[in-house]
C-alpha cells in the first residue's frame, strides 16, 4: 500500500475532524481525494505539520489529526519531546512512514534504514505509540479518535506517488476557511 491508497481509505474516518496536512503530496492528495473546510493544507515550511497540529489541539477542544511523513518528522525531530511533554488528548499524529522523501522524488530517509520513529517517539516520552501496516492504519486512527488519548501512529507503507495537481487556493483563503471550520 502506498500513501495515496492509505489516504483514500482514511478519508471517511477523519472527515468530521480537524486535519492538518503536511507539505507537498500529503496536502495535494488529501485536497484531491476529499477537500474539506476542516482540512488545513501546508503549502510550504517542511517539518512543522506536527507542531501546527499540536498548537491547534492545545488551543481548542476539537480533535485534531495530523497527516505527517517520516521525512518531515526527521526534519523537526525536536517536535517529539514537545509533544510528549505537552499532552493534548484531542491530538492524533499519523506519521505515514514510507522510508522516503516522497515529494522530492522518493530519496530514502533514515527512517527506512536503521532509525525507528516508533522507538524514537517512545524514547521521547510519548505514551501511546502504535506502529501498524498501511492496511491497519484506518482502524488504528479510528480507535485513537475514539480513545481520547493523545496517540502517535507510525504507519509503515511503501514508497510511491500518484500524479496529483498542486493546490492553487490562496493560503489566506485556506487559513480563513479552516478557522471558520474550527469555530463552527
Amino acid at each position, binding site marked *: 500500500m502506498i500513501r495515496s491508497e492509505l489516504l483514500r481509505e482514511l478519508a471517511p474516518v477523519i472527515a468530521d475532524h480537524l486535519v*492538518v496536512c503536511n507539505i507537498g503530496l500529503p496536502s495535494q492528495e488529501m485536497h484531491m481525494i476529499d477537500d474539506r473546510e476542516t482540512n*488545513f493544507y*501546508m*503549502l*510550504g*515550511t517542511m*517539518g*512543522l*505539520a*506536527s*507542531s*501546527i*497540529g*499540536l*498548537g*491547534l*489541539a*492545545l*488551543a*481548542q477542544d476539537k480533535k485534531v489529526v495530523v497527516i505527517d511523513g517520516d521525512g518531515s518528522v526527521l526534519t*523537526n525531530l*525536536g*517536535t517529539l*519531546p*514537545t509533544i510528549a511533554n*505537552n499532552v493534548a488528548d484531542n491530538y492524533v499524529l499519523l506519521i505515514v512512514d514510507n522510508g522516503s522523501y516522497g515529494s522530492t522524488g522518493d530519496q530514502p530517509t533514515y527512517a527506512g534504514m536503521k532509525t525507528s520513529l516508533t522507538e524514537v517517539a517512545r524514547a521521547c516520552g510519548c505514551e501511546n505509540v502504535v506502529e501498524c501496516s498501511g492496511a491497519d492504519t484506518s482502524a488504528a486512527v479510528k480507535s485513537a479518535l475514539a480513545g481520547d488519548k493523545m496517540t502517535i501512529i507510525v504507519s509503515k507503507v511503501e514508497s510511491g506517488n500518484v500524479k496529483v495537481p498542486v493546490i492553487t487556493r490562496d*493560503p*489566506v483563503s*485556506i*487559513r480563513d476557511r*479552516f*478557522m471558520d471550520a*474550527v*469555530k463552527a
Partner: protein
Amino acid sequence: MDVSEKIVSDFVANDVSFITTVPCKQLGGVIEAVEAHPAIYHIPANKEDEGMGLCAGAFMGGKRPAIIMQNTAIGVTINTLVTLTQFYRMPLPMLISYRGELGEPVACQVEMAVHTKALLAQLNIPTYHFHQEEDVEEFDKILKYTFMCNKPVAILTDASFWKGY
C-alpha cells in the same frame, strides 16, 4: 512593577495566552514570569521554527500566540516566517533578546547582531528596538498593532534595556 512583570502583564491585557520560548540569559526573568502566570500556556520549544509552528496552530485554534527568543533565531526561522507566518497572514509578536549589542561579552553574538536589523528589514517585518527601560511603555501598543495587522512583528531588546547580564 519590573520590566518582566510589565511585559507579561501587557501580554495578558492583550489576551495573549499561548507563549512559546527558547531561552536566552537576558530573557530569563521574563520567561520565569510567563511560566508563573496562570492565564498563559507556556510551551518551551526546542527550536524557534518549531515554536512558530506551535504559534500558527494556536492562532488557528483561537488563541493569541507570542514567541520569545534570541536574535540568532532570525537565522533559523526565515523560511518559516516567510512561508507560514507571512504567507498565511498570521500575527506573531516576537520578543527578541538582541544579543551582540553594547555590553556583550561574547564575540560570536556580534556576528548575528550585525545582520539582525538588515534581515528583519529584508523580510518587511515591523521592528522595534528597546534600548532604554522606558521603551517598554510602547509594548502594549506594539501588541495591539501586531494583532491589528496580522503580521509577525519584532521587538528587539538589548543589554542596556535589560541592565546588563
